[in-house]
């Protein structure tokens, strides 16, 4: 069988994906059976890492924290993306609002962390200086995660708004017009026509948002490093901590494997469930 000539143009991309995505994906299964600090040569230990994983309270706590984090960010992300996209559709300010909301995703993340630190830090942030209000981010167990969630929304809602806004523009005016002719008022058009046609887009955002929520760790690393009391230690950050701060890369490989599986299973389940309801 001869492949079309044009297909060969994918060869460089395939080579890179093979070397730096698929190969690590396979290799991680093997590394997960190692006791390995990253520097000394590894020793095979069989399934010890997985047995340890099952009994690791910190791991289960991290999974739970990740779930809380997803529950804090995802509904807000979806609702805000949709509400803002609808609110600005057709306004003269539309372009400005989109440009502004997209901006945090492009600002140097280290810089964003500094900006948030200067503004919201409870010891010497601007808000504390001005109002005397000591924000509880690093004292109250619940507050740290809220802080990380707010930062994540700050960073990523712009992307969601753009995606929904694009979908809104893809809805033909005739469809809405037809509903109006049939006597629907604006609220009904929004509720029954627009919402229905936005479904696939929202589904896309749910799956994408979940994948990012499961893997989020940068915000935690930048803002809290798991504090206070480990309540912001999401599973992605736990992986980093285990592998590159405690130097247990074998155990880290086992964690990588589990996180990958969780990501895929959740994404597929969601796509199935939400896809069927349509």
């Amino acid at each position: 069988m001869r492949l079309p000539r044009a297909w060969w143009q994918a060869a460089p991309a395939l080579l890179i994906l093979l070397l730096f995505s698929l190969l690590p994906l396979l290799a991680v299964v093997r590394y997960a059976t190692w006791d390995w600090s990253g520097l000394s040569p590894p020793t095979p230990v069989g399934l010890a890492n997985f047995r340890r994983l099952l009994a690791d309270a910190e791991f289960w706590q991290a999974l739970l924290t990740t779930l809380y984090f997803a529950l804090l960010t995802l509904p807000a992300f979806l609702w805000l993306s949709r509400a803002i996209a609808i609110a600005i559709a057709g306004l003269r300010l539309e372009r400005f609002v989109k440009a502004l909301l997209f901006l945090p995703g492009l600002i140097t993340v280290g810089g964003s962390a500094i900006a948030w630190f200067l503004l919201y830090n409870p010891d010497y942030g601007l808000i504390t200086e001005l109002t005397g209000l000591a924000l509880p981010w690093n004292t109250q167990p619940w507050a740290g995660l809220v802080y990380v969630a707010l930062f994540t929304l700050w960073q990523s809602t712009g992307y969601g708004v753009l995606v929904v806004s694009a979908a809104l523009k893809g809805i033909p005016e005739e469809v809405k017009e037809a509903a109006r002719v049939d006597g629907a008022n604006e609220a009904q058009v929004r509720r029954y026509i627009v919402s229905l046609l936005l479904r696939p887009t929202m589904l896309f955002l749910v799956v994408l948002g979940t994948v990012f929520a499961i893997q989020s760790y940068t915000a935690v690393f930048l803002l809290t490093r798991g504090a206070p009391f480990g309540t912001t230690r999401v599973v992605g950050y736990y992986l980093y901590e285990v592998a590159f701060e405690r130097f247990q890369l074998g155990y880290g490989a086992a964690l990588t494997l589990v996180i990958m599986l969780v990501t895929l299973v959740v994404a597929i389940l969601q796509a199935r469930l939400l896809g069927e309801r349509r």
Partner: protein
Amino acid sequence: MILYRIVTALFCLFVALPILWLLYAAFLPATAILQASLATWGFSLENFAALAETPIWRAMGVSLLASGLTVLGQLVIGLMAAYAIRSGAPLLGLVLVVLALPAELLMVPLYRQLQLVGLLDTLWALVLPFLASPMVIFLLLQSLRRLPWELVEAARLDGAREAVIIWRILAPLLRPELIAAGILGFAAHWNLVLYPRVMAGVGELQTVQVFLIDLLRNHPLDWGLLGAAALVATLPLLLLYLIFEKRIIEVFEASFK
């Protein structure tokens, strides 16, 4: 609808606040911060002078080089891959799966592999694993789908080679999309934090993110210095964004229609 508009206004404020405050803090004189009173706050450039004594410029150079090389590769490799997929190569599924499993998640196995081939703590560790960006491929594929494909078919009938079709015919037509995808790819790579810290975090190859985080750890009280550093580190992306904002947003939106 009114609720939506109020939420939008509040959220815009919430987004703008840290950015505006950062701009302001960068120009605060050190005395104002010690006294912490609004009345004495003023304008000064002393923070930027203090910044000159830190290795920020070298870190910026490393980041510009690494992210620049990466994006160049991403665009070349990405356009070729997008063209192959547009021509029927069944690879879109693979691209989307890799999108869900980014290099940062695979740090543990990548660490081992880069170690084995002796690439840890080299520029290549920062560049090679990112050369095929699923996001860039996806954006360029969506742009190719908007082009009339007869163009390519006609060129093929005339006997044009694949490289000619891609680089002489398609690339010039996709200039706006290449710029937009390039800036998004650049931002994504520029903003990596944990990956460069682990793979090349020591000494010479410190990227600007690693530098900023260390600065924040070591000088948490020095608002002005932190603000100035954050501003300088953001400038390249900020300028690119201000120049091409309309194009970036149009291309991004058009991919999701």
